[in-house]
């Protein structure tokens, strides 16, 4: 059974990569922010957060941070996700679910194409 001590292998792998990253592009971090107020949680923000973590880990995207925040001010549109890419305007996705997460990562985070169908006012049901 895994224990905390088993993290060592992952730590050593990360350390090598982090050194490379620090030298190159410390400012180039992409931030994904998931709203995690009561309304967000009950609308499904936790599986959305975890889907981002899984996708970013399995694609080994080294400059992407998944973070959470509280109230995003639009309960009816939760789960809400903001994507911050350095040098670009932040993008807000609404009614996000794990399937949409995979598309947001593939199309927007990896390939730079905003998923316009998940923006406010564009969501189809």
């Amino acid at each position, binding site marked *: *059974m*895994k*224990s*905390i*001590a*088993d*993290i*060592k292998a*992952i*730590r050593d*792998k*990360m*350390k090598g990569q*982090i050194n490379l990253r620090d030298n190159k592009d410390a400012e180039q971090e992409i931030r994904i922010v*998931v709203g*995690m*107020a*009561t*309304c967000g*949680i*009950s609308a499904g923000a*936790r*599986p959305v*957060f*975890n889907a981002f*973590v*899984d996708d*970013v*880990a399995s694609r080994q*995207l080294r400059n*992407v*941070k*998944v*973070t*959470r925040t*509280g109230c995003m001010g639009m309960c009816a549109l939760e789960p809400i996700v903001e994507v911050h890419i350095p040098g670009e305007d932040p993008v807000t996705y609404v009614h996000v679910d794990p399937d949409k997460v995979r598309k947001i990562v593939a199309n927007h985070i990896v390939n730079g194409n905003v998923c316009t169908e998940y923006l406010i006012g564009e969501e189809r049901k």
Partner: protein
Amino acid sequence: MRELALNILDIAENSVKAGATLVCISVRAERGLLTIEIADDGCGMDAEFLKRVTDPFTTTRTTRKVGMGIPLFKMAAEMAGGTFRIESEKGKGTTVRATFELDHIDRAPLGDLADTVVTLIGGGCKSDFRFEIGTEKGCFEFDTRELKAELDGVDISEPDVLVFVRDMIKENLMDIGGERL
């Protein structure tokens, strides 16, 4: 909320917002009772505000906005034949404790505690967390301070680290029957 683990996430978020340096979360299932406790050393609340926070509908005219997180957790406990208590002291911290009859028909399942842990410890928040999960088959503890010591500077919210922690918690929960609560 469909799962008590979602309530735990929501209540522990209050602790993070309250600036807690340490949040202790304990889940125990023994002798027919499920007990969930979330204790923090955050900013706390004064007695008058505390009363309003627990009963937003029975108290008169709220001057400050109060949310639904605490009332929802209280309702979940009382629906399941349990009890709810919140203690808080300004400047010291807050402890929320709810009990549930394990076999009560209206008790929500505990749900995915591993996902709740990952969401709490990831996401770039500064608080440390200590988790204790106990059943009649055994007990499992996890402390982010110990994990951070092993990580030696690597960020705890790196997705690779979080995936590892989720798997570790799942395995340990399975071992004590905690995934079926």
